[in-house]
């Protein structure tokens, strides 16, 4: 292995760039969907390499599904895309991740800014339980100290997008923790969308939910896909087929780090995969 880990230290204040060659700060305000290009990505936990040489482009305004057996590094890869990987103590990485051509790991880029542009929905719904539904939706705006002018409209818009509005419009003041699991997850989606990210990462967003909520969220994904690029990890092959335009198949052979075996348009990946291992996996032969 010739690649050396890139040190990321979330705690150190981001070094102010002495000079900024192209003024390359993430200038992505507005709600334009973004394109992510990951190149030569490696990831370590401590000294253990778990992800090896992943190069993948997630196209603008499209839904890309990451599929593969458990433990092959899908979540790790996803978290590298919005700098959440470095939150884990001892985690390291190498490679570059470009958002619209700007390296999010470039010097002078702050993790906080990246995360505002690249939102994330987690496997386990994690609303702030003691904030009201409305406060939850607006939480991200408070972090960036943006002054939302029409807050009520924004809350309605986001909850509508997340498919939750009709269920909660009469109790926006009740606590986020008082919703059902499926509702909480949709609240988390609304919360992520409220900061108008360019990309939304979703790590098995439906795996803890009932079938109805799952379908509801899939519909949400299709609704938002135009204005935000979606990257979704899923173990559900039907789901991948239903929601994604592109697919990437991750696989970690025994005691080896995870790699991308094959990536391409979803139809091809399911209809006519190039690699026999992909065929086995999508047809439910293993994993």
């Amino acid at each position, binding site marked *: 292995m010739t690649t050396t880990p890139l040190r990321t230290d979330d705690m150190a204040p981001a070094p102010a760039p002495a000079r900024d060659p192209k003024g390359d700060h993430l200038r992505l305000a507005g709600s334009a969907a973004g394109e992510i290009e990951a190149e030569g990505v490696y990831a370590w936990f401590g000294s253990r390499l778990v992800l090896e040489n992943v190069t993948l482009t997630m196209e603008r305004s499209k839904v890309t599904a990451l599929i593969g057996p458990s433990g092959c590094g899908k979540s790790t890869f996803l978290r590298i895309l919005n700098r959440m990987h470095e939150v884990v103590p001892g985690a390291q990485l190498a490679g570059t991740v470009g958002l619209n051509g700007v390296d999010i790991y470039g010097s002078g880029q702050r993790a906080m800014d990246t995360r505002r542009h690249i939102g994330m929905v987690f496997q386990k719904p994690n609303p702030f339980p*003691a904030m009201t539904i409305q406060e939850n939706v607006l*939480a991200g705006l408070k972090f960036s100290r943006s002054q939302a002018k029409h807050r009520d409209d924004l809350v309605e818009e986001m909850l509508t997008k997340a498919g939750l509005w009709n269920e909660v419009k009469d109790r926006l003041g009740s606590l986020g923790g008082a919703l059902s699991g499926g509702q909480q997850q949709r609240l988390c989606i609304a919360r992520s969308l409220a900061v108008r990210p360019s990309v939304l990462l979703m790590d098995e967003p439906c795996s803890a939910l009932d079938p109805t909520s799952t379908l509801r969220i899939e519909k949400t994904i299709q609704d938002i896909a135009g204005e935000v690029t979606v990257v979704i990890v899923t173990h559900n092959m039907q789901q991948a087929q239903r929601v994604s335009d592109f697919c990437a198949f991750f696989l970690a052979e025994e005691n080896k780090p995870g790699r991308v075996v094959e990536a391409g348009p979803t139809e091809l990946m399911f209809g006519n995969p190039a690699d026999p291992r992909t065929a086995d996996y999508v047809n439910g032969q293993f994993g």
Partner: protein
Amino acid sequence: MTSTIDRGLADGASPIGAPVPTPIVVNSEVSQPDKIYRLTAKTAGFGVLALLFLIGLFLVIGGWPAFKVAGLGFFTHSGFQTQGANPVFGVLASLVGTVEVATVAMLVGGPVAIGTALFLSEYAPRWSRRTLIALVDLAAAIPSIIYGLWAIFELQPNVVGFSTWLSRHVAFIPFFTVTSPPLNASIFIAGLVVGLMIVPIVASISREVFSLAPPGEREAALALGASRWQMIRTVVLPFGRGGMIGAIMLGLGRALEETIAVTIILGGSFSFGIHILQHGGTTISQMIASNFGSGGQLGNHVLLLAGFVLFILTMVINLAASAIVNRSRSGAGTDL
């Protein structure tokens, strides 16, 4: 076990005509081990309450003769002159001093302890964390007489200068005015020492509570673009509020009853007032400790009565605290 679960219609949604069934009584028999456990827990619970009650009773009975002599004057007089035909004694100066020392201790020790706890749980580099935590826990085990000695030889000479500065520049706050120097052996210095004494225990408990803040909610905040401090304000502090208040109350309990260090520093004069920077003052614990056995029969009754006052004071504070400890989860009362 004879319990039939009625598979009736939920929500009373009975079809037209069908009578709404009355809820059945579910027979929930308790198993033998459960019964034993319940009995043990109940006994222990009531035991503690009974003990508390008996201690209170003991103090009331012991203090009653003194109360008969002084009446409510016990609360408006200061001193411990119990011999002779005209005894003068009372708890006023000691009570005021106790509250003052505890207040200074809380104002100094509380923030320092919470800051320490946050540093340990959120900011300290991982490799240093275990060592630092061990050191803080160790500091909690230092006997208070050591703190007292350190305070009188080391802290006090250095703090007097600060007291002087305060009395010159912040004297518009009545507490910091000085009517009669010197500025050593003051309530302020005693409060400072007690404040430092309670830092380790308060920090240790708070740190533990902070480290229990739900990781999912921490990540949620960070993934929304929160800075570390915003994440702490949104998730860690609201989640830890109950534990933090509990820890501070524990510290306050210790501040109220602290005797040795306070006795070393304060002279024990029954002078009292709000001028905490200047020489003089006493606390209930100190009054009891330094006068024990020196006031004859009546003296003992006086000290038991003073003890009862302290007992009630701590009870009131703890009850108030448990009323405050309510919603402590992420986002509670967050206003960024």
